[in-house]
């Protein structure tokens, strides 16, 4: 008799447990993914992205998690894309196969990795946000990809007017321009857009136009040409940090540094904390960089918290974007009300807001066009001032006034 009773009790308890466990798992924890290079040459970018995403998750959970799901907490899973497109695809396949209850993911960083990863996430109908620039990512007719940064073409076309407006804000109208670029893919396409579209449209005169093959052994001949042509603005487009250093050093040596000649570079490699050690703050002073995202006005408390918790000197594009992406997922989940990737994707696709997560992206709005590109995405221009890159454009959210020579 007693055996029977105990068995019954056990069965009842077991049944209760079986019922309770899935219900508990569904409401208490929602998994989101970050898939980015965490090993190989781009590991540092992955690390910065994890730091940003972790901070966002901490903030979201501390503020009560997903309210429409009974305060469910977000949980971040990370996947390493390694150093090749093949490894990235493997990681994506592992992510969608082994984590069927993942609701959304972000990352990939390098455009070619993002292309490979989204081939998998699209077929798995997993919503994926990315900060990668390549136009191709959102030109394939995919429905589950959301590109938060301005695409490469948009950046190339909007960068120059933005730079000129920074100059005008500082009280100087620019009439001549110079280009010094290396011959790698991103520099070539950026410079092509400048030469063919932006410079003629702005009515500027191109007075010096130099292309070199990296790595540079000596920047003297290039900088001599720049000095004798005397452009009022120099677009500096290397891609290797060693070339960045040589050019900046030589400009300074020729008396063109520290903002005397406005210099604008393209790409976040000119604004990573490592530059502080490799080039040094004095030489970088005044150099401007166009990037897809940066910490702007209104985010001071987040940035302070980020600096305190991670020990990084400032919050880069990578950290800030993954921080904002977590908030996009949070808001998507709030609307969907359930941990279902298709419902979350629908909710993200339907967003049109200038509140909440929208504040973490330049342009300040989250709305997607039919390709999945963020409407109104624009570039941010940061300038090295007193040992840190600070936002000087767009003016609405800029934290600092630009330094620009008045003549």
């Amino acid at each position, binding site marked *: 008799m007693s055996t029977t009773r105990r068995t019954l009790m056990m069965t009842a308890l077991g049944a209760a447990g079986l019922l309770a466990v899935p219900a508990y798992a569904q409401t208490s924890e929602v998994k989101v993914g970050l898939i980015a290079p965490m090993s190989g040459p781009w590991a540092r970018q992955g690390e910065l992205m994890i730091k940003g995403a972790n901070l966002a998750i901490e903030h979201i959970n501390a503020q009560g998690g997903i309210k429409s799901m009974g305060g469910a907490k977000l949980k971040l899973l990370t996947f390493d894309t*390694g150093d090749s497109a093949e490894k990235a695809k493997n990681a994506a396949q592992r992510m969608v196969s082994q984590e069927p209850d993942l609701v959304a993911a972000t990352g990939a960083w390098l455009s070619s990795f993002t292309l490979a990863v989204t081939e998998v996430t699209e077929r798995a109908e997993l919503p994926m946000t990315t900060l990668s620039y390549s136009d191709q990512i959102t030109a394939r007719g995919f429905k589950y990809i959301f590109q938060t940064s301005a695409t490469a073409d948009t950046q190339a076309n909007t960068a120059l007017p933005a730079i000129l407006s920074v100059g005008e804000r500082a009280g100087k109208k620019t009439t001549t321009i110079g280009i010094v670029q290396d011959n790698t893919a991103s520099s070539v396409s950026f410079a092509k857009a400048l030469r063919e579209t932006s410079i003629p449209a702005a009515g500027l005169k191109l007075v010096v136009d130099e292309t070199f093959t990296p790595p540079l052994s000596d920047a003297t001949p290039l900088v001599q040409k720049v000095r004798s042509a005397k452009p009022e603005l120099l677009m500096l487009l290397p891609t290797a940090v060693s070339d960045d250093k040589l050019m900046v050093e030589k400009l300074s040596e020729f008396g063109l540094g520290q903002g005397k000649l406005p210099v604008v570079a393209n790409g976040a490699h000119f604004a990573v904390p490592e530059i502080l050690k490799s080039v040094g703050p004095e030489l970088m002073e005044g150099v401007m960089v166009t990037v897809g995202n940066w910490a702007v006005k209104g985010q001071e408390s987040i940035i302070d918290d980020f600096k305190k918790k991670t020990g990084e000197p400032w919050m880069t594009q990578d950290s800030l974007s993954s921080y904002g992406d977590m908030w996009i997922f949070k808001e998507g989940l709030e609307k969907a009300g359930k941990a279902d990737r298709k419902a979350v994707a629908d909710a993200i696709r339907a967003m049109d807001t200038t509140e909440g997560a929208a504040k973490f992206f330049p342009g300040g709005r989250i709305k997607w066009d039919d390709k999945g590109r963020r409407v109104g995405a624009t570039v941010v221009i940061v300038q090295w001032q007193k040992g840190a890159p600070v936002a000087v454009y767009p003016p609405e959210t800029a934290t600092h006034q630009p330094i620009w020579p008045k003549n």
Partner: protein
Amino acid sequence: MFGRRSLLRESLPIVGFAAVYMAVASMVESEYHLLTFTLVAVWATMGLAWNILSGYSGLVSFGHASFFGLGAYTSALALKLFGITPWIGIPMGTVVGAVAGLMIGVPTFRLRGHYFALAMLAYPLALLYVFEWLGYQEVAVPLMRENAAYYMQFTDHRIYVGIAVALMTAAMILSRKIEISRFGLSLLAIKQNEAAADAAGIDIMRNKLIAIVLSGAVAGTIGGFYSMVLLVVTPPSVFGMLTSAQALIMALFGGVGTMWGPVIGAMVLIPLSETLHAELGNVIPGIQGVVFGLAIILVIILAPEGIYWKIRDKLRAGRDDDRRPVDASSAAPAEPSEPARIKPGPDAPIVLSVRNLSKNFGGLKAVQDVSFDVPEGAIFGIIGPNGAGKTTLFNLLNGFVTTSSGSVSYKGGDITGLKPNAVCRLGVGRTFQVVRPFLRMSVLDNVIVGAFVSAATDDQARENALAAIELVGLGGAAERIAGSLTNKELRLMELARALAGQPKLLLLDETLAGLGSSEVEDLLAAIRRIASRGVTIVIIEHTMQAMVRLADTFLVLDHGQVIGLGDPKTITREPRVIEAYLGKKWANRA
């Protein structure tokens, strides 16, 4: 073994293996694991492509990414730009790979050894920049929602495994076909000793070109499929160093020169690398590369030629030990009775005629104004102290070295300046001072390599080889592995290899070197038997004693010049000859 293997029977284990592989894959649910199954077959095929050139012929290529990348871009661009289905795009990749093989092979085969390897490295690096310059930094294969199967885009990932396995199986069967063919044996001969292969009548350039074309075709095919699996093609992902290295690593790890090698390599390394990446990558970023590297180093140390050979050698070692005593007795000089040999008379026709032959290496006159005639059926000895120019003279005779002046004619026709394999095809065989056997092959296979030059069919080659083995007295050892032979047996085998091409004139370079006196007797008997079959023999030697008993005529060389020619007994009493060998003091005593 060779010539009796039917491709059909040899393919059975391959097809069986592919069926088991596919059966296991079809039980797998996870798309992630199915992707690994696909990639294992892809990299196995790429390793097989590398092996077809580098494994069989020994020409190490660091640049197989060229073919792989061209194939990948061909299928991807065909679909993206022209809407051509990959079912046609991939075969287009095959053709592009083959053509690239030819275009790369023709100039690059002028180089040898490390220089060849380094030149191959340059091609993918150059192509990488060309494709970046063309603006193909990132080519995404368009997603086809309609007609997906036509565009090779399947939701059931097992189909990808199926295609990959089919390609791998085809590459394995092709490899097996090469291994058991005349072509494969020729490549092996080139790998072991290019000079010896040339002397055995193998057209080196032609064989190498066929190998690189086949290899490029296989790599181009699998590259074309790879872009359909990855759906994104970038120059670094298909032309990068890693792609070339991966092909090489699969083969080196599993075993070079066998079709099972790259397959074993891929089946171990790809899942290992991916598992390490998945399990450790997030915990300690980068550690997966360290563990992977250590695993490779460990295997290379423990099994330097790859896992396959290590295992096979272990298995063979046991078997050969059992058979050894039987072979040894049958290889002993229980010879057929020696028919009496008739020395050529004074009116015998002249087979080889050398006139005023000279060779200078810079200021050094290695051979000076040498003239002699060898009558048909003779045993003609060339003697002289070390450095007298004997081997250089041989190299001039069979075309390894070009003459500075003078002429060589064989059976009345001028052969000065012909390539070694052309000289060989005319009926001039030769052996080398340093024996270079193909140690892993059986005695018979070793000898067959030499038989191709005169045999029209593979069966004929086999027959000639067996006859040659019988003639030198290795009859019982035909199936043994060359690596288990004694030094004397190796010399006899080398003799058989030269003989298998059915030469009319045989040039023997220090065949007796390093042998004991009883072993010398065995070889002398074998040489006499060969001569009694009507083969004219020219032999270099510096052990005078043996030569006096063997040769009909002596030519004595010193400092590249002829210092004596005639009957051995007379020649050895000539003061100039004694002086050259022993110094002035002995010459005076004689």
